[in-house]
């Protein structure tokens, strides 16, 4: 399987989308750092004048980090979708897959090699993105905007953050095994969109105490648990589960309706089921 993982690494690295995403991610981190520095400076000045602005500082720091993580998660998801949705189908369409599969390897090895290659590279990317954002929050501007974080908070939040691209890869491989690159890409983007928009609808429903909106959110999270994973990451990071003022401290990225802990297991099962289904379909299909 290792040769296939290596090929997948090289394929990813040689793709223009990967290089562009890396450069844009660096630009984003620089921008995020500059913004954090300026806000930190402003907050530090204000704190010297009015000591009761501590609540404001907490609000701004979690708000800024939540925003950064949201956008970071969005970039990671897009990279995961665009780099993995054609990983099987485009090779089948171009017949590049023929010479690989004519070798003495099983289709399971081929697909798992692709999966581990993609998933590990995206996991590294998303972990670096997460740590970059958290690091900027902690150290830029002498930590003026630092959210109080423990190692466990960082670790558990990063776990949820990294899980999203891995689950996207599982679903992308499933779609790539059954349909064309374009169709798979469209389906996956819509699924991801439903998951995220549904998440916002659920939070709105919780604020307005409207059960229908909450149910829409729950169903959309079951369809694709992207938003639940992001919210689990922020809850772990800001330690705001069951905190009634969570939404107030985190603004639009707050969680008025926290996902059930079972959602984590659901997400894991969701990804695993997609991968197993992809294996089953790929083994039976003609290429």
């Amino acid at each position: 399987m290792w040769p296939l993982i290596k090929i997948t690494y090289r394929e990813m690295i040689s793709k223009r989308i990967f290089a562009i995403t890396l450069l844009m991610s660096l630009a984003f981190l620089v921008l995020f750092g500059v913004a954090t520095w300026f806000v930190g400076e402003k907050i530090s000045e204000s704190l010297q004048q009015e000591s009761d602005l501590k609540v404001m500082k907490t609000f701004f720091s979690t708000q800024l980090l939540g925003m950064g993580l949201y956008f970071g998660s969005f970039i990671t998801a897009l990279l995961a979708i665009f780099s993995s949705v054609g990983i099987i189908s485009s090779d089948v369409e171009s017949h590049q897959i023929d010479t690989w599969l004519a070798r003495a390897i099983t289709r399971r090895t081929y697909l798992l090699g692709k999966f581990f290659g993609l998933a590990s590279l995206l996991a590294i990317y998303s972990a670096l993105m997460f740590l970059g954002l958290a690091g900027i929050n902690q150290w830029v501007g002498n930590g003026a905007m630092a959210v109080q974080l423990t190692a466990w908070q960082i670790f558990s939040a990063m776990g949820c953050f990294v899980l999203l691209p891995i689950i996207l890869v599982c679903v992308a491989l499933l779609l790539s095994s059954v349909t064309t690159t374009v169709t798979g890409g469209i389906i996956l983007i819509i699924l991801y969109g439903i998951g995220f928009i549904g998440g916002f609808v659920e939070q709105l429903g919780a604020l307005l105490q409207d059960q229908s909106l909450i149910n829409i959110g729950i169903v959309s999270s079951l369809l694709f648990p992207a938003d639940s994973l992001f919210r689990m990451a922020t809850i772990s990071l800001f330690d705001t589960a069951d905190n009634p003022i969570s939404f107030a401290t985190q603004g639009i990225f707050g969680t008025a309706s926290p996902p059930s802990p079972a959602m984590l297991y659901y997400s894991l099962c969701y990804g695993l089921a997609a991968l197993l289904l992809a294996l089953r379909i790929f083994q039976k299909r003609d290429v």
Partner: protein
Amino acid sequence: MGEHVIETWNLSKQYDGKGGCKEITLQVPRGSVFGFLGQNGAGKSTFVRTMLGLLHPTGGKAMMLGHPIGTVESRQKVGYLPELFRYPDWLTGRQLLEYHADLCRLSRSERKKAIRDVLDRVGMAGRERERIRSYSKGMQQRIGLACALLSDPELLFLDEPTSALDPIGRKEVRELIASLRDQGKTIFLNSHLLSEMETVCDYVGIIHRSELVVQGEWRKLSMVKPQLEITLEVPEGRTLVWPPFLSGVRQVRKRDSREVWLAELDREEQVPVLLEALIAGGIAVHEAARKQQSLEEVFLYWIKRKEEEAHVAAHQNHL
């Protein structure tokens, strides 16, 4: 393992009961060059892709190198050059070969030697560090051939291996095939370029509209319809009368009083009967030589025969 590296029994791969290949039963002897002939769309590539496990058969069964097709074991010592040769263009030729060597589980030292050897064999030495996207079609086909040869396979599937090559490249590939056969390798050659096939093939199988029409040693197949080139002279007062059992006869050329005719017979046994009839008719027969039929003639003969059989069967069904 038996004498045959490929054996199939009614192997079919059809799409909604149409196209592809249908009930193919054939044997490919070890150490031979087997030419699989057919028109475009006859089902040649479908058959090869089914043998390699890229397509799942819809019927029948097949063994390759002593193992059922679709298994890893059956592909252990197989090389393949596809008709639609497309390789990751972001790799260099050398990187492509290195990845394939990894998949073939070649050790580092074996890999180095094997890559050097195959690059030499296909005439790509010195160009291996260039990206595949900068290769011409012919070079891509050559690097594909290098990939197929990399693991020193016992059985090599070459699907239209010279389609992108110039005349010199074609000649080199023919020589390569001949040298591989001399090493005891078996080559399954898919092509519709009959003139190229006849110089290298030992055995042929002819596929027409998904079905195998005939298979066997091609020199024997070429004798199915004996042709005799007869140089004769018709004396004054005599008339040349051809016996009615000939299935065809035409004058090839005439020089002075000598005429050269090409007579087509149905059976081998008719050759002496024909000559006796001519002599008995007072015709001076100066020379009679068996004419070796070209592969194209053999191919067209069997295709025509198959078409006629199909026509008769359709007529009977209609009645």
